[in-house]
């Protein structure tokens, strides 16, 4: 995390603002009287850093705690960060009894104890596990403290299963990312405060509206070119700023453009942070072969042209290697098709995944297959605000969107028609609005596929 104020941000000092917000959160968590504290964090605002810091301070104050995360990858990541900050701290990693249940990197950490039984980890300062595993733990003596990470992605029924384990908790999450979902209909409970398919935070706040709520005001990940768009499109009432200024992040190529669509869109993205590679309009199957090929080609050219990034982390250009690039899609079969196309072009090591799985991850450059590209209809799934938000907020430098032309028209033909449910808080902006906002911004960085 940097504290260098950028000249272009004027009087706003992102480092100071973030430090002040963190101090308030820790004060409420450590000394407050409320049973819960809720922290909203925009993409890349130092949420994990906050979780680690809160866990360390609670442990240092002699208050053992449990940490609830949503996926095993998140749990392992948290344990690694805790051990990195405080190698002496006794940490427990509660894991499932499946084969290969945790990251092998944990085996190298001296003070991390791993077990599938909660009893084996009793007495450790910090015990970390997934919500699914915690749900099977029984205890007579609840923990005095808990930290619930990614609380907006946790379902209300998952919180119901673990809430008996702790007395007080710090809930941290990003309200703009994908909402939890259910594979079966849950409309019959829509509008109930404890709707089991809603997010844990909405249930928590419906029953405990007096809980203190905080917000992290600075995104350290998003560059100055992306923060305003993401903030306006997805967080219109809770704006945030980028931690770096317009000139702090730069992307350059060792090899000049050959004039092709992929090269021109890369140049555009390097210059402005955004690029839209537009293919001719067409209705296609989900795994649109041309769009998938275009995505793969953009990645290939990005690597071939020797992209290098300059950022506040280092004064010298750092090569953008395959592991710093991600491709985001809406569906798993699309991701599989992109992986196959990349393999055919001889590209390895690039992360290709769906929005759901890219949540919480960070890359230098992302290439996104637009969720509505080539579709004849705009369903609630493809319009979901969180999906586009995740895809548009994973990058530190630039984001290239590959899309068929005609999405704006498609949106106009498919206004939101979800039934209105009584008692349900409307999520704003809705996906329709957010999609239009992003599209109109991308239109300024449009490059056509053809020469």
């Amino acid at each position, binding site marked *: 995390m940097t504290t260098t104020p950028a000249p272009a941000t004027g009087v706003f000092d992102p480092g100071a603002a973030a430090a002040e917000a963190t101090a308030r959160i820790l004060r409420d968590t450590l000394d407050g009287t409320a049973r819960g504290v809720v922290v909203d964090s925009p993409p890349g605002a130092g949420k994990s850093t906050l979780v680690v810091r809160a866990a360390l301070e609670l442990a240092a104050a002699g208050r053992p705690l449990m940490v609830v995360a949503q996926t095993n990858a998140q749990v392992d990541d948290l344990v690694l960060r805790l051990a990195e900050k405080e190698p002496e701290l006794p940490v427990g990693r509660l894991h499932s009894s499946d084969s290969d249940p945790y990251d092998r990197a944990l085996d190298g950490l001296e003070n991390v104890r791993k077990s599938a039984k909660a009893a084996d980890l009793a007495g450790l300062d910090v015990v970390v596990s997934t919500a699914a595993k915690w749900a099977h733990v029984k205890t007579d003596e609840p923990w005095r403290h808990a930290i619930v990470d990614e609380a907006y992605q946790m379902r209300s*029924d998952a919180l119901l299963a673990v809430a008996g384990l702790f007395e007080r908790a710090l809930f941290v999450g990003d309200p703009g990312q994908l909402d939890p979902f259910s594979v079966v209909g849950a409309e019959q409970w829509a509008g109930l405060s404890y709707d089991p398919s809603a997010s844990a935070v909405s249930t928590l706040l419906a029953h405990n509206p007096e809980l203190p709520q905080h917000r992290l005001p600075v995104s350290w990940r998003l560059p100055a070119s992306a923060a305003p768009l993401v903030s306006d499109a997805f967080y219109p009432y809770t704006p945030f700023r980028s931690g770096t200024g317009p000139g702090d992040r730069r992307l350059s190529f060792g090899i000049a453009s050959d004039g092709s669509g992929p090269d021109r869109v890369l140049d555009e993205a390097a210059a402005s942070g955004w690029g839209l590679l537009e293919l001719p309009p067409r209705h296609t199957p989900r795994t649109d072969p041309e769009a998938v090929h275009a995505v793969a080609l953009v990645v290939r050219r990005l690597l071939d042209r020797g992209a290098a990034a300059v950022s506040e982390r280092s004064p010298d250009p750092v090569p953008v290697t395959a592991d710093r690039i991600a491709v985001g899609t809406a569906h798993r079969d699309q991701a599989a098709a992109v992986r196959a196309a990349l393999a055919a072009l001889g590209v390895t090591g690039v992360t290709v995944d769906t929005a759901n799985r890219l949540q919480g991850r960070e890359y230098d450059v992302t290439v996104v297959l637009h969720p509505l590209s080539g579709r004849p209809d705009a369903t609630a799934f493809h319009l979901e605000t969180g999906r586009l938000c995740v895809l548009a907020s994973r990058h530190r430098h630039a984001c290239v969107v590959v899309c068929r032309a005609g999405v704006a028209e498609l949106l106009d033909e498919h206004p939101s028609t979800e039934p209105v449910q009584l008692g349900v808080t409307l999520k704003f902006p809705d996906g329709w609005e957010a999609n239009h906002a992003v599209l109109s911004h991308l239109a300024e960085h449009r490059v056509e596929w053809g020469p």
Partner: protein
Amino acid sequence: MSLIGTLARLEAVESGRAQPLATVRHRHLSDRPLVLVPLTTAGEAGAPLGALVGTDPAEPRLLVVAQPRDRDLRFAFLADLAEAVVPYLDGYAGEVEAAERSETDPETGKKVKVEVELCADAPQLIVPSRAGVEYVRLLGRSTRFRRTAEDDPDTPYPAPARVPLLGRWLTHYGERARVPGSSLLLAATDLLNRHWATGQSSLEDQHLGALLAWIEAGDGESGAEAALRAELGRDAAGQLLCPPAGPATDPTFDNRLLAPAIDRYDRARQALGAAEEGELADARLGELHRAEREVRRLVASQLKPTWDAVWRCLELLRGLPAGSRVADRWTRDRWSFTGHRDRVRSGEPPQPRRDDAVTSAQKLAARETAQAQLEAQEALDDPLVLAARRLAGEAFTAEVLDVVPAWTESKRPSPRPLLTVRTGDVPQLGEGVKVYRSLDGRPQSAAFVGYEPEDGTLVLRLLDRMGRAKNPAEGTVPVKGDRIVWTLFEHDQRGGPKLPDPEDTPWTHGGPPGEPGAERPDPVTPEDLL
């Protein structure tokens, strides 16, 4: 929609006939289902207009409310409906078989086997459409809190006996219909749409007449033409040839035929009330009967085509053999029926208006498990369904080319043989991804090891179900030449974690719901007394 579903729809358009989506029947059909075709009154929620109900296609029982806004007539209708439905349900309550259920012993906290009754078969309700399922739920909601004179002698408008009981059963069936794969209450359109793809949109597929037209098209007429006729065709009097499957009626029928007939009935009733002389009263009573018969005839004319269509649908589905795992799901339906039978018998109050936090979470978890189980079972039962999963990379069929014995590196080595298999499918496999096959009806798992670089064949490592000995038990390891279906999804579903008891609802969910007890009946509002 799956790729193969889209293909089937395209083929339906091209050929002019619905195309099969399944080779077996994926829902249980009772030998003696109760078909219920309800109609409702336009403009007033929950005011039934009439129904055909019965277990014999040749002998439907016609129930009609001649003046739907008359609460007494409505109660009489509900009493008649209860008379038709409740004895049918009761007929299945008596025949039981012994079964075991594991329960937690309240004293020791240990799981113990308890001997319980399980109904040998369960009653099945069939309605024409999803709107019919909704209507069953609505009838249940509007009647289960009613009080009979026996429940409460002071109740101002006592419901006929059995009506609240009918409401509880309809509520149970309506709620069970939300569980994926359940067959206690089915909609005919859902049954047909599961097994056939038509060349029309899924919205149009909700029209029972149009759906049947696609499936039964032939003799020189395409499904599209027949469906259009079913949707729009009208006779010389301007009435639909194929009336809607309800519960809503066709507005043209309401305006031109039904409303005048009900008016005549109202006038005849008033005239009868005003008549003082015996002879005149007799004549007017005759008039009233004629007017009522006319309303009944009209309502029957709208119900009968749908009644016949529902039975036709059942006949079509009986033409398909049942999938092998359908009986397993039906057993769960029998448990559901038995459970509610026991709750009614033990005098528990009707289902609450709203689920509490724990109940709703439990229901959602149970339905998600049922959904995953249904998807897996349908694919395992039916090669056509499996084909869709294979196309999506979620399953593959492969021929075993080679088997190499191997063991774990522990003190007591267990068998972990390596299989080399060849497939023409494109499964989405990554290192360590687990795949499953069915071995004597139970899942055996294997882990994906990698692709052979030379020829692209797959290497799998078998992980379980090979017995406890050092060498695998006979028949548990595939042999060279076997063709095996592997799935990337699990065949069985693990149950979720145990949730707290409702009285232990945590602070995050509002704490305990408070005193459990029977909910009060719905208050009488001015609108109930039009």
